């Protein structure tokens, strides 16, 4: 593959993760964190940002070493690289935002097995130069974060009557308990996918 790419192509690689190939609404990868931790906007944001950082690190590293990683053990190598960054993020969150870290619990270590990250490493970073891989990871990571955040905002507003823990409706609000439970995650994701598909159809 040619190492020289135009800036237009760069832009396209970056943008496709945000909308055209959004990891959640279009590719539907990484559903585990999408369902499990999007019950509040803060949790969604923390999960999205953590995934973004891990994705950036692992995609760049995989792309850097793509010519020396033996084909037979490439998945193992990717996982080791990803796990390294996840461990870093795990400690960082525990030190900086212990509350959020506690809330996310096992789902931070579980970023290791997020198919989105492995998928980008295998499908993109392993075949493309470092710069492009970085852009791809940035676009995909931001797309992932924005999608999680939109689900988290809807679920928190309806399920707890607050946004980023700031109460919106005051006392007497009737929380929709279902929205903070897993079914609420599925419902919200379904409705958002419906909306995204509709918009896409309109454009096409």
């Amino acid at each position: 593959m040619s190492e020289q790419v135009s800036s237009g192509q760069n832009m396209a690689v970056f943008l496709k993760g945000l909308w055209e190939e959004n990891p959640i609404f279009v590719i539907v990868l990484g559903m585990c964190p999408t369902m499990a931790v999007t019950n509040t906007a803060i949790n969604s944001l923390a999960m999205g940002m953590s995934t973004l950082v891990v994705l950036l690190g692992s995609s760049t590293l995989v792309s850097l070493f793509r010519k020396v990683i033996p084909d037979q053990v490439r998945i193992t190598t990717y996982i080791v690289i990803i796990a390294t960054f996840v461990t870093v993020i795990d400690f960082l969150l525990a030190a900086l935002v212990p509350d959020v870290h506690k809330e996310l619990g096992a789902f931070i270590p579980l970023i290791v097995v997020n198919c989105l990250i492995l998928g980008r490493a295998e499908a993109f970073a392993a075949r493309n130069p470092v710069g492009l891989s970085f852009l791809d990871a940035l676009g995909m990571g931001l797309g992932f974060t924005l999608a999680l955040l939109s689900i988290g905002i809807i679920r928190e507003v309806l399920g707890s009557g607050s946004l980023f823990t700031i109460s919106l409706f005051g006392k007497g609000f009737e929380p929709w308990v279902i929205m903070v439970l897993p079914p609420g995650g599925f419902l919200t994701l379904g409705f958002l996918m419906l909306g995204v598909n509709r918009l896409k159809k309109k454009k096409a």
Partner: protein
Amino acid sequence: MSERLSISTSPFLHAPSTTPRIMWEVVFSLIPVFGAAFYYFGLSAVLVSLAAIAGCLITEWWLDPRHGEALKDGSAMITGMLLALCLPPGFPLWMSFLGGMVAIGLGKIIWGGLGQNIFNPALVGRAFLQSAFPTAITTWDLPDGRYLSPRGTNLALPLWQGTPVDAVTTATPLAKMKFDHDPTRLWDMLIGNTGGSLGETCALILILAGIYLIARKIVNWRIPVAILLAVVLPTLVLYLIDPQKYPSPAFMVLAGGLLLGAIYMATDMVTSPLTPKGLWVFGIGIGIIVVLIRVWGGLPEGVMYAILLMNAATPLINRATRNRVYGH
């Protein structure tokens, strides 16, 4: 296709048994049931019912690709009425309306409209409300002959809890039995003088409506009979073992939503199996799950979950009980 041209197989006898006709007949059979609800709970029952029905009809009209054509078959009306019958009288009207929207939107339209849905739409709405507002949906007012005043949190503003108009609430017979071992008098349950959802109180009228629907061949008798048998027989065994601990079979049949579920919800033609054998399996499954939940489960009532679970199993039952093709 022209409206006047109907294509069917022989014999070409004239029997006006069309979907709308069946649906509207069910609607008429529900009128006495609503009469009982209005008699016991007055204005609040009327308001809760109207809100649920409005939620269903408006959503059907809004999401129907044929712009309101689907309203004519009466199925949205039935969904609204059945949903209303399993809501408590003091329920906030906005929640009732929302339940109607969920019932039609998520229970029916999203699957492709009438005939395509897997789950009973009214129960989908009820299940949504149950898991969204667990407190409001388990707060029951006493039937105390106040006709003209709203009850409980009927008038809460949308998204708000509202303050209860009165504090006189009661437990349903099932909850009393489960948590306090206090059986309600059978006669009270038969005529409906107990706390409960709108359609769960008067057992007598439900039984009569059920007999009418079975006689008109709108309801397949196998489903209610299978459900009742599967509830009565295990309960009878338990009752004979320890009458102090377990409720009597008569109590189990008359309490809660069992009759309503067995006659109106489980018999939904779309979501029940096709073959006679399948209907038996379906009904017995519901009855057993009801007994399991009521006697050993954490909830006092389990008819809704029992029917929804067996709805999910219906395609499987259809496949397992397929009739042998002639000559095969």
